[in-house]
């Protein structure tokens, strides 16, 4: 691979460009008007402005990105996460243009992109799925019938959704009627598809996901799990690996299910199989598969010692990965990622603004993947992720200690930010014990 266009922004574009630059690949950043001064633009070999600040005019504008690919002669495209990364039509256009898509086939993306089809497909492949509706639920009346069959509480989700948008739990008929309408409106607005599905809602759940890599020869390998149970508004705030909640037998079962899921759709490149783990029963179920690099991939990198972006580029080029696929590297020690968001640390409401001071922590076992630098302006157009602080330690306790020091050392002045929340989280007895679930933040705030 000689050149790579990164169809994304912020920290993930910068992180991909860093690896590609180190591999001697010519890198091309695309950016919106609002992002012209961000570090990822300057760190790429070349950069192209693809439009105005609203995502629909730039990062989601397929024609604008295709034009940039053509104008720069890019040989490959890495989509990052979010934006066009799970858009199978875009992947198809890239592929049809004779350009390498750093990701799975458009077919696998389509099969996993529709949550209902994916669930049915996984069930057929022998992967456990939660009780739920096998088809989209057309209206409130049908939702009420389905919910009474599944049994309350139920989770209402957008079939085409992600990122927790439009998701809510309902404990009775009244709540379901209102949750259904809200989910439908949001699904239409955010994903242009109003299809809704219902699933059994697990009261004390942990969100445990498995990193997989589908190799060029068709082998699917699992690279351990990440526990993503620290969430606000159904969105992840902190992730760790290994999961403190599961024993080695459960881990083996989860990894096995994830490999089966990947094999069922002939998966290539990096993907993540999300599972729900019921703390009370020890059961786990397939939730969905993300057909792209995940935000929290660095925790896997810190425990395995791999560079997942470099492996993605090798696979996309038809080359072998850097490790023995029969014996993928096991987790060494413990890693924790904290998502530093531009939001207030109490209610978690967005707080964009100009950065007047920015000092990242450094040192052994500390990594910062940031999208911003001192002097940049955080605008309201995109998600609130400023940076990811990722730490590694010999044990979970050592990793938490390292995180406490690193958070104390991290200074962001200007936009509101949730660093004070992480001070609280790292001092929280439930989190420190490792025995927590996805309701943790709500309990901290109630």
């Amino acid at each position, binding site marked *: 691979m000689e050149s790579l266009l990164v169809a994304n922004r912020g920290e993930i574009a910068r992180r991909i460009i860093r690896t590609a630059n180190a591999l001697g690949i010519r890198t091309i950043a695309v950016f919106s008007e609002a992002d012209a001064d961000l570090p990822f633009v300057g760190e790429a070999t070349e950069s192209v402005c693809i439009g105005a600040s609203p995502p629909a005019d730039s990062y989601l504008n397929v024609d604008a990105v295709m034009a940039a690919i053509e104008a720069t002669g890019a040989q490959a495209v890495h989509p990052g996460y979010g934006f066009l990364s799970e858009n199978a039509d875009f992947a198809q256009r890239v592929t049809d243009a004779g350009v390498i898509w750093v990701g799975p086939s458009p077919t696998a993306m389509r099969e996993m992109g529709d949550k209902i089809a994916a669930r049915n497909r996984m069930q057929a492949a022998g992967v456990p799925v939660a009780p739920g509706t096998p088809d989209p639920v057309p209206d409130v009346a049908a939702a009420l019938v389905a919910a009474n069959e599944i049994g309350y509480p139920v989770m209402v989700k957008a079939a085409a959704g992600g990122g927790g948008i439009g998701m809510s739990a309902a404990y009775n008929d009244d709540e379901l009627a209102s949750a259904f309408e809200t989910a439908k409106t949001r699904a239409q607005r955010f994903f242009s598809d109003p299809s809704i599905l219902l699933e059994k809602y697990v009261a004390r759940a942990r969100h445990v996901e498995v990193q997989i890599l589908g190799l060029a020869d068709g082998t699917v390998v699992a690279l351990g799990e990440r526990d993503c149970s620290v969430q606000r508004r159904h969105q992840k705030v902190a992730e760790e690996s290994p999961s403190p909640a599961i024993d080695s037998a459960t881990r083996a079962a989860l990894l096995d299910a994830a490999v089966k899921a990947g094999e069922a759709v002939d998966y290539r490149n990096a993907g993540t199989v999300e599972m729900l783990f019921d703390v009370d029963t020890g059961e786990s179920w397939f939730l969905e598969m993300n057909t792209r690099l995940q935000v929290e991939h660095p925790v896997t990198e810190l425990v395995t010692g791999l560079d997942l972006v470099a492996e993605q580029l090798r696979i996309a080029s038809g080359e072998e990965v850097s490790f023995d696929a029969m014996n993928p590297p096991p987790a060494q020690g413990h890693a924790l990622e904290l998502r530093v968001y531009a939001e207030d640390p109490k209610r978690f409401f967005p707080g964009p603004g100009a950065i007047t001071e920015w000092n990242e922590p450094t040192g052994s076992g500390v990594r910062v993947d940031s999208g911003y630098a001192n002097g940049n302006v955080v605008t*309201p*157009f995109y998600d609130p992720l400023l940076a990811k602080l990722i730490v590694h330690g010999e044990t979970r306790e050592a990793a938490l200690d390292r995180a406490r020091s690193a958070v104390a050392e991290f200074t962001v002045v200007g936009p509101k930010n949730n660093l004070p929340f992480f001070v609280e989280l790292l001092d929280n007895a439930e989190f420190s014990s490792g025995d927590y679930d996805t309701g943790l933040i709500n309990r901290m705030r109630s």
Partner: protein
Amino acid sequence: MAEVRAEMSANVWKVLVKAGDSVSDGDTLVILESMKMEIPVVAEEDGTVSELAVSEGDNIDEDDLIAVIS
């Protein structure tokens, strides 16, 4: 009289009232969107919308006037 101002820079997604409407404490006046989150802006007292300073699609900054309730 109460001025309703923006808590953060945002895009005005929906305007749910017009000048002259009477509103009650807690009624949603407009819905902002910032950083992929919808943020309802509510009236904090009963009254009449005597001034509406934003339209759907506007980009507004922190502390910009949204409406006046009197």
